């Protein structure tokens, strides 16, 4: 079970309090009507499944109810960082150490 640092509450809390919401940084297209069916399908359904660093959206569901991001290693389950919505990760695939 994970121990997750909520960047809003500013403390570590148990995983029980959180919900995982899938891959982070997938912005809703500003003009959906200009998207082809294929493009819309990619936005809707296609997600990365990396072995290693992954950016995920989580919500502190039974805590502050805030959504935030986690950079997590899918192999070791190490959480490298958590950061607020709108912020960019410090850890990225190209320079993740």
């Amino acid at each position, binding site marked *: 079970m994970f121990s997750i640092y909520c960047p809003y509450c500013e403390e570590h809390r148990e995983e029980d309090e959180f919900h995982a919401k899938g891959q982070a940084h997938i912005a*809703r297209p500003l003009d959906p*009507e200009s998207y082809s069916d294929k493009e819309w399908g990619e*936005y*809707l359904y296609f997600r990365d499944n990396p072995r290693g660093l992954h950016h995920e959206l989580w919500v502190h569901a039974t805590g502050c*109810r805030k959504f935030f991001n986690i950079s997590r290693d899918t192999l*070791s389950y190490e*959480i490298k960082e958590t950061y607020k*919505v709108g912020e960019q990760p410090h850890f990225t695939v190209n320079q993740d150490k």
Partner: protein
Amino acid sequence: MNLKSMTQKNRLQAGGRIDRNQPVNFEYNGTQYQGFVGDTLASALLANGVDVVGRSFKYSRPRGIVAAGADEPNAVLQLGATEATQVPNVRATQQELFNGLVAKSTNGWPSTDNDLMSYIGKVGGRMMPPGFYYKTFMYPQSLWDTYEKFIRKAAGLGRSPLENDPDIYDHINHHADVMVVGAGPAGLSAALVAGRTGARVILADEQAEFGGMLLHSNEIINGLPAAEWVAGVVAELSKMDNVMLLPRATVNGYHDHNFITIHERRTDHLADLAPKGQVRQRMHRVRAKWVVLATGAIERPLVYANNDVPGCMLASAISTYIKRYSVVPGKELVLMTTNDRGYQAAFDWQDAGRKVVAIVDTRAEPTGACVVEAQKRKLKVIKGSAVIEVKGRKRVSGVVIASINAVGDRVTGNVRTLSCDTVASAGGWSPAVHLSCHTGSRPEWRDDIQAFVPGATVQQQLVAGAINGSYRLAACLEEGGHCGALAAANAGFGEQSDELLEVAIVDNEISESASMALFHIPHTQPTSRAPKQFVDYQTDVTAAGIEVATREGYESIEHVKRYTAMGFGTDQGKLGNINGMAIAAKSMNKSIPETGTTIFRPNYTPITFGAIAGRHCGELFDPKRYSAMHRWHVQHGALFEDVGQWKRPWYFPKTGESMQDSLNRECKAVRDSVGILDASTLGKIDIQGKDAREFLGRVYSNAWAMLGVGKCRYGLMCGEDGMVFDDGVTACLAENHFIMTTTTGGAARVLEWLELYHQTEWSELEVYFNTVTDHWSTLTISGPNSRKLLAELTNDIDLSGDSFKFMDWHAGTVAGVPARVFRISFTGELSFEVNVQANYGMQVWEKVFEAGAKYNLTPYGTETMHVLRAEKGFIIAGQDTDGSVTPMDLGMGWCVSNKKPFSYIGKRGMAREDCLKPNRKQLVGLKTRDPKVVIPEGAQAVADPKQPIPMTMLGHVTSSYYSACLGHSIAMGFVRGGLDKMGEAVYYPQPDGSVIEAEICSPIFLDPKGERQNV
């Protein structure tokens, strides 16, 4: 000494950590025995000379006790004096003895001593090669039921109780700075040093007494016998308020982010059933800053022919039984060893006054101090040789020994027989790396110790002592102290000073010579022809079996494991795995590290379901939610149904009524006069902010821009894929203030959905959400007399049709309390939803009934609500939708706006090519040809009932009821292209072979013009 304890023929007169003044009576396989306080079930059985404790899984061979701890593969017994207290999978080596303990061996039919299956096993040995189950029982599948009965009976893996567990279990959460696993020399040192820094320390050990191997060692620490040093350390630790000591507590799992689960057995040593008011077992859930693993090592047996005959044991287990329990499990010992450490068992045996027949050392020229000691003791040491085969069936009667070559893969001659009743084997040690592997870390092979040690990990973990391959006592103490200090310092306590590290000095450590890397003892015959050489006792895997697996092409150790079942037992191959890997490696001409290891997973030893469940069972399994009027419903005979966590009245049967009678009566009351529904459970979300209206327009499929204050509107909520996922009525309370209702089960999900879009996509909108579901009681008063009834309860709300229109809401006073009244209808009748503060709910409900008696006011439940809304063709999200239907599929295109400037959620999705196809499954009404027949919900529609199976399925029935008001059954369901098939017939084949015919119609069965509610 009384007669019974005289029968403990293997018990020594003095010594050990048992209390001879406290005899303990117990039963094993129907016979009464006696042991002492301090015994394990295994030591007591050995004291009484019980040789056979089970029959093997596949070949039904007699098996005896091999080990003295968690690694025991054979003495896995069924415990329990009563049906309710049955516990399977108990290792006799870990079960403390108590008065009245009842144990049974789990396999063996008709009895363990005389097992019929063994004759089949004996004959069938060659007919049951590895992969036997896998190959034989794959086909034909239809015979599996027959095979399974045979296998279950033969395998005898223990059984679960048939009655409810009467004991209490619980969970405790902890935070620790330093979690020390194992209280042997390394763990005790670590805990002591860490504890002295003031860090919060938890020290857990699976045994009743702390000390590990020190409880049976001859070593001297700081001038004291080791066990006395242990007592001193434990005394100091127990005085520290910052240290928690957990004996009888197995650390069973090491999970992500240093989360540790500990299985503590609090009363299993006292009685069959926990003493009244006491918790039998407890799961400790520990989040530790740093973990020190000091789990020790497990001795490896050697693999030789007939090495499973009772009397074949681990050398270290023999020392444990003699020194700790004062039990010598035999008369004449032959010891086979590849290393110096093994000699100790022979010395202990000799000191106990029994005969050591020979020490068989596989090394050609052993030179260590223990060899000198053996000579001093005048023990016969046979060098460069091995026990290649054991004689005997239910007990060892002798051994065949032979000279072997220097690498130990060939017998070189000199084959002869020795008479003995016990064979000890010492094949070196395997660090107990299990916990370190639980979080995905792979162990690393070390050639110098011929063993795997914990590998690199991302956990905040240190390892100390034998788990780290440091077998010398001084090294264990030093590493433990060092890790304890480091862990505490890392957690912010103390400084790593040398002063702290001086925990102990070992005074009598002896020097060791090199051990021999040997796992599989050769035989005069090839492995495939030699008598069985067991690798994994619990799953009956032999050296020959592993060779067959590799010969048949299973090269990955994970495949070998699955093919042979090696390591699949409840002991997870604690004894056999490394030997198996070595044999697989050798037969593939690879090294052990090249072959690799299998993965250990939680739990380290079997755990009860009770400990896993803790208090989360029965009433406390899941929270229950009740409306403020629940007590009234109970008093008026309501039956309840679960909707999410809510208990909702289902219907209110009167004496003698069937369910259908009740529904008919409740429905008619609403249509003819007035009924009342407790709708408090509907999700309610308070939405405020200057952009609240804009936000609603983006999350609902219909338009919200023009909704005035005092008005309500029904809305459909879709996902980005255009599929309906919730619905409900939202009212405009003020220009910047709305209240949204959701389905009862969907409330939490909808709130999270709104927050998701607000926080991640449209944070520029000023809008706030809050759940107010529990703040309001909702009384739905419905029926032609609802206005008259409500008028008697309010004098400040004008209920007339002109001033209080359909889809209006008014604030005012109802039954003397402030209320919001919504004129909305889910029944098709004139309806008012009265919302009052939840704490007034019951009072208002009762007042409504006082006034309603003259109108035959009838309470109705969810089932009547379902019938009434289905008569009107209203959907229930989640019943008539399943995440694959668009508003158009529901015939609800009227609830979709194409004029809104913002591309609301679902708009693009429902415009996808597939969503626009005309032949989609669409929701229609269904009228059966026979008006009395109600189609079962879920029934599949076909166009041609005579089509051979598999038939072409067109859709399914989602809602189906008998309508008393209409006098016939009604149903809603999906039919492919159904909206264009009005009047056509569809067929619903039933499991009994009959077919129900129905006509496709509008789902609005009653009052299509809506005249009943517009009055």
